[in-house]
C-alpha cells in the first residue's frame, strides 16, 4: 500500500507573527519557517504504518516555492521514502492546492492520503475534505486513532463533545488531529540520508491545473488589543467587582 502525505511549509509555530504596516499580509521576511505541526503528525503516522509493514511506500508532496524542498527533506529525514514538489510562486488557496494534489494522486495512485487537519497559517481546515470530494473518496477528519484492516480504514475522530469512530472504504483521506501520535525528531544520520532520497519537481501546468487564487484578500490587520485590567486584593473584592462593576454575577 502506498501512502501519500501532503505537507506545507509555514511560519514556525513559536514565532509571533507581525502584520505588515500596509495591511497587505503578514511579514514573512527573515522569519523561521517549519513544517506545519499537524503535517508532522501525518508524516509520523505514515512512517509508523510503513514500519509496521502496512504501507510499502510513503511519498510526501508539497505545493509551493522552491523553499518547500527543505520541508520535504525534513519529512524524508523522519522516514518518508521520496518526495514531490509542485513548484509555483503563485499564492495558493485550499481549492487550488486540492486540485494540484488530485493530479498527484492520479499520477501516484496511493491507497491512503494522510494530511494535517489544518495549516497554522491560514487556518482554513479545507484541503483534505476538498481533495476527498474531488476524488469521490470517503474522509475521516480530526483523527486521533487510525487502524487499517482488509479494504477498510477505521478512524477515531475528535468531535465536539467527545469521540466518534467511522469506517471508510479504501482508498480514503484521513486528516490528523493533535493526539494521533507524537512526532519523532529527525536524527543527524537520517538527516544526512534524506539528502540522497529522490525529490521530483513538477509544475502546475504539467499537471493541467490553474492554481490562480479565487478569493481576494482586501486587507490584513492586527486584531484589536484587549487591555489588561486591574489586580484585585482578595476574593471579596473580586466578587464585589464582578457583581457591581462588571455585572456578570
Amino acid at each position, binding site marked *: 500500500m502506498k501512502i501519500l502525505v501532503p505537507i506545507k511549509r509555514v511560519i514556525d509555530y513559536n514565532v*509571533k*507573527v507581525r502584520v505588515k504596516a500596509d495591511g497587505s499580509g*503578514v511579514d514573512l521576511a527573515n522569519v523561521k519557517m517549519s513544517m506545519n505541526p499537524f503535517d508532522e503528525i501525518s508524516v509520523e503516522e505514515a512512517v509508523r504504518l510503513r514500519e509496521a509493514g502496512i504501507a510499502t511506500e510513503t511519498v510526501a508532496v508539497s505545493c509551493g516555492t522552491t523553499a518547500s524542498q527543505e520541508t520535504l527533506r525534513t519529512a524524508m529525514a523522519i522516514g518518508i521514502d521520496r518526495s514531490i514538489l509542485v513548484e509555483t510562486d503563485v499564492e495558493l488557496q485550499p*481549492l487550488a492546492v486540492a486540485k494540484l494534489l488530485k493530479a498527484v494522486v492520479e499520477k501516484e495512485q496511493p491507497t491512503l492520503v494522510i494530511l494535517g487537519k489544518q495549516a*497554522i*497559517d491560514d*487556518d*482554513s*481546515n*479545507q*484541503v*483534505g*475534505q*476538498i*481533495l*476527498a*470530494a474531488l476524488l469521490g*473518496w*470517503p*474522509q*475521516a*477528519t480530526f483523527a*486521533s486513532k487510525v487502524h487499517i484492516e482488509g479494504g477498510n480504514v*477505521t478512524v477515531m475522530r*475528535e*468531535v*465536539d*463533545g*467527545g*469521540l*466518534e*469512530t*467511522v*469506517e471508510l472504504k479504501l482508498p*480514503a483521506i484521513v486528516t490528523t488531529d493533535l493526539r494521533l501520535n507524537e512526532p519523532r525528531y529527525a536524527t543527524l544520520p537520517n538527516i544526512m540520508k534524506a539528502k540522497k532520497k529522490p525529490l521530483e519537481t513538477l509544475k502546475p501546468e504539467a499537471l493541467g491545473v490553474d492554481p490562480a487564487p*479565487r*478569493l*481576494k*484578500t*482586501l*486587507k*490584513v*490587520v*492586527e*486584531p484589536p488589543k*484587549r487591555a*489588561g*485590567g*486591574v*489586580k*484585585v486584593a*482578595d*476574593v471579596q473584592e*473580586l*466578587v464585589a*467587582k*464582578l457583581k457591581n462593576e*462588571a455585572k*456578570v*454575577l
Partner: protein
Amino acid sequence: MTILVIAEHDNASLKAATCNIVTAAGQIGGEVHILVAGHNCAEAAKAAAKIPGIAKVRVADAPQYGDQLAENLAALIAAHAGEYSHIAAPASAFGKNFMPRLSALLDAAQISDIIAVESADTFVRPIYAGNALATVQSPDPVKLLTVRAAAFDAAPADGGSAAIEPVAPEADQGVSKLIGRELTVSARPELGAAKIIVSGGRGLGNGENFHSLLEPLADKLGAALGASRAAVDAGYVPNDYQVGQTGKVVAPQLYIAIGISGAIQHLAGMKDSKVIVAINKDSEAPIFGVADYGLVGDLFELVPQLTAAVA
C-alpha cells in the same frame, strides 16, 4: 439573495450554534432558509421553524443522514446549491467536516470561520490563530461560509413559525459508516453555549485537584468546565474540555482562568470573552495581560474562598 443555513442538530433538538449562524445570515441580507438533514429529525425541524425570521425550513429525513456523514450531507446540499447565493454552517467539527466537500462539488472557494460580515461578498476571518484578521472577498456565484458561532449573538430560539417543506434525499454514497460515538455526558452546559466558564490549567497539579477544586465552583455558578491544552496534555481532563486555538473558541459573559499561564494558543480561544478573571500565583503570567480582574495568589486557597463567596 437567498441564504441556506445548515442546521447542526442531533435529530431531536437543534444545537445552540445554529441560532448564531442565523444571526450571521441575517447580516448578509436576503431570505434565510434552514436545512435540517437527519433521520427521524422532525423535532429538530420544528425547533428550526420556531426561529424568528426564517422563510422556510427544508427537511431531508432519511437513514443516510442520521449520522451526519460528510459524504452524504455534501451530496445532498450540492443538489440544491443552485437555489442559493450563500450556504452557511457553524465552524464546528460538524461544519468543518462537510463544507469543504461542497467547495469541491461546486468549484467554489470556501471562507472558513468568519467573525464578521462586511457585505454580501466580503467577510472577516482570523488567520494565524487570531493573531491577524483578514478581510476576504469571494467572486463565486455561491459563497460557502463556516461561521464562528461565538462571534455572533444567538437569534431567539422562539417566536417564529416558518413553513416546513420536505426535500428528496440523494442516494447513499455507501463509502463510509459510523461505528460508534463516545460523547462526554455532563449535567453542565456545553462549552460553546455557556454564559460562564471555569477553566483550569497546569497550576491545578493533577486531575484530582482539577475536579475537586473547580467542579464545586462551576456547579455554584452554573458554569461549563474548560481547560488549557497543557492540562489536557497532562491528562487532567479529556480533550473536549480544551479551550484554545486547537480546541474550542469560546466567548462567554464570564471566563474564569485558574492556574492558566496564558499561552498564545489558549488566549486565541478565549480572549473574546466579555469579562475575564485570572487567578494565578505568578503575577507576571501573560493571562493577566488580557484579564479584566486579576487575583495573584495560591489557587488552592483562593478557589475554595471564591466558591464560598459566590452565593
